[in-house]
Structures are given as C-alpha cells and as structure tokens.
C-alpha cells in the first residue's frame, strides 16, 4: 500500500491535521475538470492552509493508475491522515465527500 513520494508541495507533511489528497484525472475530460473545481473549493472552504493536492493525469502516467488501481476517473484518494479512502466521481455531493474525508460539515 506504500506510495512512492510524489507530492511536490507538501510543506506541512507529517504535521497533525494536515491532509494529503491525490486526484486522478484523465486528460481534460469534463468530469476531470469538474472534479478539480470541486476539490479546490473544498480545500479552500474546509481545509484552508492544511492540505496538499497532488494531481495525476492517468493519460500521461498509466503506471500511476496501475499502482493505485484507478479504473475510473476522476478518483480522489485520501493519502493522509490514515486510513486511506477512495472517492470516485466529480465530488459533486459535498456533504458525502466531507463525510468520507472525516471532515465536519459547515453549520447550516
């Protein structure tokens, strides 16, 4: 299950409460673009200053898809904190994604 270190911008790695997320996309498909938008917004609003996003384009690096068994895209993997979680899709359902990432939802 160990991943080769590929995160380039992870100043806060190892820090408590810091999130490492890996998003797998495929070229510039619309689903992939949508997932990027949704993930950026999620980080801005819920993980401000304590998250690192890694984007892997499987169209360019199929071995990365092999390593993480990525069959469908977009797919998001929560690398840290453990345990690891995989979320498939455009991340359109924010509440569902927050629950999966073990983050408290914003008060209504």
């Amino acid at each position: 299950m160990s991943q080769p270190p590929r995160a380039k911008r992870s100043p806060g790695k190892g820090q408590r409460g810091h999130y490492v997320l890996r998003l797998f996309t495929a070229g510039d498909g619309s689903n992939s673009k949508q997932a990027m938008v949704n993930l950026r917004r999620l980080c801005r609003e819920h993980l401000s200053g304590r998250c690192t996003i890694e984007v892997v384009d499987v169209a360019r690096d199929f071995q990365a898809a092999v390593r993480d068994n990525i069959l469908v895209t977009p797919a998001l993997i929560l690398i840290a904190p453990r345990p690891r979680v995989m979320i498939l899709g455009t991340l359109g359902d924010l509440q569902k994604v927050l629950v999966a990432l073990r983050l408290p939802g914003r008060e209504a």
Partner: protein
Amino acid sequence: MLARCRSISKVATQIPGFDGVLEGGLPRGRTTLVSGGPGSGKTVLGLEFLCRGAAAGEPGVFVTFEEGAEAIRRNAMSMGWNLPALEKAGKVAIIEARFGAEEVLSGEFDILGLLAIVGGHAKRIGAKRVVMDALDVLLRVFGDRRRERTELYRLHDWLINRKLTSVLSVKAQREGDMEAQYEFLEFMADCVIRLDHRVVGQVATRRFRVIKYRGSGFGTNEYPYVIGHHGLVLIPVSKTELTHQPLGPKIRSGLAGLDAMLDGGYRRASCILIAGSSGTGKTTLATTFAQAACQRGEKVLYLSFEESQEALIGGMLSAGIDLRPAIRSRRLMVQTALPEALGADGHLIRALGAIDAFKPNHLIVDAISACVRMGSQQAAFDYLMRLVGVVKERGITCVLTNQSSGLLGADEELSGIGFSSVVDAVIQLHFVEADQQIDRQILVIKSRGSAHSNRREPFVITDQGIRFTSNPEPPSVQAGQAGRKDGGR
C-alpha cells in the same frame, strides 16, 4: 454481389472447430461479445484466444474484472498455457481490474482510468488483441443503464480506434436476461456468440451459437463443444454439403465364405452394420476383419464400449483370433470407454482425436447399442451420425456392431436406430433352433453398390475362428435386388 465481395478481414482463433463456424475467425480490429452462464467456458475461450494469439505473434491484454490475476494464471496453467512465461516474454499482459468494497461514489465518473491502464500495457507489448472478462462486473459500478451505455460506447470506440481485436465477455443467467440487460451490447458488437451450458438427462452439454456476425456469413446452428485438457474443442457437425468419399474397391472381410456372399468382400470406405442378438458372434466377425486388415498392413481403430482391451483380447483368443501382434505392431489401436463416463460430445471428441492421431484405414465401433447409455437415444444417434459422417469424409471403412433384441426383424431394428441411410451394408447373425441344438446363421440383408447372396448360411465359431459349414455360392444374377422375393425359388 458487391457486398459479398467486400469480405471483412478476420483473425483465426485457431480453436479447433470454431473458425469453421465463424467462417475464418473473429472480425479483425472489431469487438466480439461472448455471453454465457457460469461454467460455460467464457474465461477459457478468452484465455485460449489470447494464448493462441501470443503463439501466432499477436500479443494480447487480458483484463479480469472478477477473478484475481493469480486465479486466472492457475486456470490457464490447468489448460497447459503458461501465462507467467508469456507475460515475461512480453506477449501477454494481465490486468486485474477489481474495485475495492470501500469506495465512495460522488458525482459522475468514467472509465478513462481503465482505458489508460489498458492502453499503457497494450502499447508496452504491442497488443493486437484484448480480452475483457466479466465486463458486467465493471458495469455494475455505474448503477444506471444510461451511464453503463455511455461507458460501453466509450470503451467500444476506444477499442475500435486502436484496431484491437477484442473479446468482451458478460455473464448471462438465462437467454431472457441477456436480451434485456445487454441488448445494446449485442447491437454494438460486430460478432455475438452465446455459450450455453445445460444438463440434459444428467449429462452436461455445452452449446455454442453465433447470434450475429456483421458483414460475414456464419454457421447458424448450435454447435456442441467441450472444455478439454487443452482448451475448447468444437465438434464439426451439420455441414450443409455431404462430402462423403465414394465407395471404394472390395476389401476382404477375413472370411472367404462371407467374401463369396458379398461378391468379393466389403466395399472400402463403406459403413457396414453387423447386427445380431447377444452371443451370435458380432465381435468375432468384426475382429476377424480387423485382424485380416492389420495383416495386410492397414490400420484399424477399435472403439470398445463393452469390454476392456484385456477382455477383448482374451475373448477373441478363445475363438482363435490373436489380436496381440496387431496391437504390438501398432496397426490395431483399441480405445475403450464406458458409455456413461462422458457425454456423447465428449465421446465424439475422444474418438475424433484418436482418428486424427492414429489415421486408421478402418474403424470398428463395438457396439452401437451401448451408445444409448451416453445419455439418450438422441445422444447416441447424434454421436453415431457425426462419427460416421467424419469417417465417410475421410474414406475410412466403418464396421458397427449392434446388439438386437432378436424379437424384431432386422429392418425394424434398423429403422429404430434411425440411420439406415448411412449404412451401406447390413449383415445379420441369427440363432436357429435345430433338433437338439442351436445353430448360427449369417445373412447379408443389404450391400449397396454390390451384388450379394440372399441365402442364410450356417457357420460355427471354433477355436480357430469362424468357419462356414456350407459352401456359400457367389450371388446369383437376381440376388442383390431383394432377397425375399427370390427366396421361394
């Protein structure tokens, strides 16, 4: 006319029998859908297509959505295909594409990840073929029909654009299910094959059927196949054309008396039926012929459904026929089988395998009455029709023994079996009660393309074989037409 001329390019599967039905093989650079229930051999078909392709210089990718890669390798190894060696040689790539149970779904997604993986491996090994096994499992993750369909079109286009010859397999419990669930898949694919696995009369049978083949003709029947030790084997049956060899010259039966009755002997490449009740000497007459043929340097395949080879040798020794030299010199091959041990299809594959390997001049089946125990009257009929069909195509003489009950006349017994049309000669052995004893008699009922005697001739079985106690006369001019009409003269 034009449409017929523009025949599509095909890839031979080289799976025995399949390419005949598919009129050359699967459509090159196109997709073929294979559906079937559990145990119908979908995975084996896919594996065989890849392994034979790899051997023929066409590398391939195998994507498994259900079974683990290790299970697939073991499965292949049991058929004698060494996948790890092919993988090492860069001729085959296996991709285990299984979803974990814990994945969370949120929003739309597509199979581009899978395509990237398949594409990467395909490029690495220069793949020409792709097999996707249990595609239905992949589709299940999409949850709704519309998304399934979108992704299938995406997959299909992707495969076509890369000119990959593909086999996609899906599970189908019953025919009805298949139609509802994967109708669009059938519409999309260029060739659709259905594998059917059913149990009839406690005997498992498998059937192969081509539903459609865009731009090509194909055999439209159901074709039985078996999963053998080295993959699938389809039984070549029901060809439209009869390509039987014409009856050949006379060959000696091994008995001068019978040769006289038959105006010189059996016809080569004919089908001879020896009928009679138990103990009349059918096997003795058949082995007399086998021994004589082997002594001439010809080869005989003996299919024994009633006795072991040892029992056959021992029994015939007591009648003065020593089969051992012929077996030692490999002119006589005895293949024994318990009729119940295999289905009729299995028996046929086995017999055809022996015919291919041994290339006999003559075939003896002892006894066709035992073939009913392969499953049913119909199974026995199919088995014999196909077997006789194949040997007639190859110009092999065929001697069948049939144990008749003795209650009916020979004609009725024959029509009961229902294949008198392929039988060229019929020899009937009888018991007749005389004063204080039972005597044996032999009668030629029919001999196509030849005159024959219309008389019953008495004979005895001694410790030196069959001996005629009369001196059979060659057939008279009128004989050979109808024995009974001339009987009163």
